[in-house]
């Protein structure tokens, strides 16, 4: 019997993976050969999706992008034995794009059957949890702090320090809330991890619970990710069955219950306090901080709020040790970051690598130019609230501090490529439009500022008193950045400022009027 992997990842499905899987099954029946099709996660090489892998005596061999029309020819070429075909890429692990990465957090994604508990344990799952079970909560917090792991959701706060704060809080009960509301355009790592290795998230949440003394957790997944919702829900059910969740985790005295909650199409619910409001069943309106969610979070109780990748990365720290993890990276950015290459890019997908390589290296080594074949004009890093950077800034190393110093941010690691047909005035306007559409409305700088921002950009682009318009816009940007309650209004100025700084010619269309 042959085993063939065809990703069940929603991105792979969006370009025909289901049809390819069905075609392989049908062709196998027609030829009277027994083929087991496993729906794995995606390896993250999106330009090769649907990527079909065949298990051979010499490891897994890759073919892609496969369409249903290619299937008969693949059988003809003997792909079940790794036979040569023009879509073949040889040993999957040796594909340079993949081999050059440091896949720590994403080690299992695309490799295992996402919902097989046996596969999970067979590929290093539960090692971290077993270790945590023989540690004290303080030791777990200490080890995570020691690793230098910072929150991967965007803010970059040290995970161990946050956990320690919740551990020291006296109020009970405590909660663990996973922020899986990955709303930033250009980011999809949380989704791929939830679809491709959902047990990893569950294990991370149980460990977080043990570290802080919580016995109840919630995963808040955005509704735009129905496949991730289904995968996490199925994994939670399987984890209860396996005894990884419930009153006696792995037979210990520690109990942890986990529930999934689904968002309802509000970007602002990716902001942690808005997410807590939403979990409580309210409008996703942000809260003022302090009090910190670590002390007064969900239902007013001490709550750990972590992003999917932060919780998953904790497993690497505990399974392989804080020192192992902190040996990756540079400066205060330790470990690996799961970057996501998207937009107009030749080879888009998941690039997990140590912090510190430059943006230019990332784009050259992995991105492979634009999909359109035209020159790159701008790259937006860190989602809709991140800066647009021109090729002159591709020397920036991908680490939190270097980006912050340049008026940019790494955020959740999304890198969106634009070619030279992009109109940066449209992008600046969009940043304001998006803020106006998604603002929760609680604070005036964000709610009103975004609307005024669209208006003033329109006036500038129309060429009506451009110099005065730019002064007004800069004043508005400062007000929003300094006066907003949360990062939505506070960071919307970042992409707009970057357009003013690097692409002023797109805003000022009336030659010679701008200073």
């Amino acid at each position, binding site marked *: 019997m042959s085993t063939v992997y065809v990703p069940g990842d929603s*991105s792979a499905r969006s370009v025909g993976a289901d049809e390819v899987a069905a075609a392989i099954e049908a062709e196998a029946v027609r030829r009277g050969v027994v083929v087991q099709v496993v729906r794995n996660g995606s390896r993250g090489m*999106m330009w090769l999706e649907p990527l079909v892998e065949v298990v051979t005596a010499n490891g897994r061999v890759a073919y892609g992008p496969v369409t249903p029309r290619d299937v008969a020819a693949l059988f003809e070429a003997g792909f079940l034995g790794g036979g040569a075909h023009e879509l073949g890429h040889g040993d999957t692990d040796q594909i340079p794009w993949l081999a050059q990465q440091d896949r720590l957090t994403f080690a299992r994604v695309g490799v295992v059957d996402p919902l097989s508990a046996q596969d999970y344990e067979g590929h290093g799952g539960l090692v971290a949890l077993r270790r945590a079970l023989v540690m004290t909560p303080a030791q777990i917090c200490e080890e995570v702090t020691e690793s230098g792991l910072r929150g991967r959701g965007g803010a970059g706060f040290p995970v161990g320090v946050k956990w320690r704060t919740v551990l020291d809080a006296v109020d009970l009960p405590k909660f663990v809330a996973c922020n899986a509301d990955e709303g930033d355009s250009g980011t999809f790592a949380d989704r791929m991890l939830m679809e491709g290795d959902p047990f990893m998230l569950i294990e991370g949440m149980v460990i977080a619970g043990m570290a802080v003394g919580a016995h109840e957790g919630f995963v808040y997944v955005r509704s*735009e990710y129905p496949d991730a919702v289904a995968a996490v829900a199925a994994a939670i059910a399987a984890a209860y069955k396996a005894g990884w969740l419930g009153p006696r985790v792995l037979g210990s005295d520690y109990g942890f219950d986990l529930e999934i909650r689904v968002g309802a199409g509000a970007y602002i619910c990716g902001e942690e306090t808005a997410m807590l409001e939403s979990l409580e*069943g309210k409008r996703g309106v942000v809260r003022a901080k302090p009090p910190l969610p670590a002390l007064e979070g969900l239902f007013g109780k001490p709550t750990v709020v972590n992003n999917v990748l932060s919780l998953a990365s904790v497993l690497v720290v505990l399974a392989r040790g804080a020192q192992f993890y902190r040996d990756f990276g540079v400066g205060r950015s330790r470990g690996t970051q799961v970057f996501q290459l998207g937009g107009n890019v030749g080879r888009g997908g998941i690039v997990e690598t140590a912090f510190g390589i430059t943006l230019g290296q990332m784009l050259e080594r992995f991105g492979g130019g634009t999909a359109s074949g035209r020159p790159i004009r701008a790259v937006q890093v860190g989602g809709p609230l991140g800066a647009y950077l021109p090729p002159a800034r591709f020397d920036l190393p991908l680490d939190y501090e270097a980006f912050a110093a340049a008026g940019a941010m790494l955020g959740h690691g999304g890198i969106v490529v634009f070619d030279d047909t992009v109109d940066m005035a449209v992008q600046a306007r969009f940043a304001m439009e998006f803020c106006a559409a998604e603002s929760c409305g609680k604070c005036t700088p964000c709610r009103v500022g975004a609307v005024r921002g669209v208006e003033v950009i329109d006036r500038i682009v129309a060429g009506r008193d451009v110099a005065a318009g730019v002064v007004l816009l800069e004043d508005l940007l400062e007000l929003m950045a300094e006066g907003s309650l949360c990062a939505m209004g506070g960071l919307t100025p970042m992409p707009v400022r970057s357009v003013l700084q690097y692409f002023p010619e797109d805003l000022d269309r009336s030659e010679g009027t701008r200073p």
Partner: protein
Amino acid sequence: MLSDVSLRQAPWSQEVALETIGAHAAQRGPLLPVLHALQERFGFVDARAVPLVAKALNVSRADVYGVLTFYSDLRSSLPGRVRVQVCRGEACQAVGGHALAEHATRSLGVDFGGTAVDGSVTLDEVFCLGNCALGPTVTVNGRLRGRVHSAELDALVADGGVLA
């Protein structure tokens, strides 16, 4: 599929509504799960359900209405038979998303957020479907599709009734 509500609309029934509310009322923070469940059952959240939810959860009708109108997923009226979402996020903009969005409103004859008068189609914008390396991305009746330009969208919409 969670987002695929158009295929299983049940006609309004107070009994069914109460039963649906009751199935989720005992959770912590039950309002959002209750509203999701009602929408899944009826295709949208009927105004007649609002006082029932308020009573069952012991909150005000204003609280329920406030939540219902805050979240863009929750609908107060029946969507079209074919539901189309077009991603408006930056990653899709970088590969022709603006042109696709324009084509969608023109060819379907509705603005974003609108439903055709004959109830054939509802068009919504969405900010990111997590398919950022394979855009432009749309969903048709809850089914995610990548690398969709004008011609592909037309074909998907034409097939929309049978897909999903």
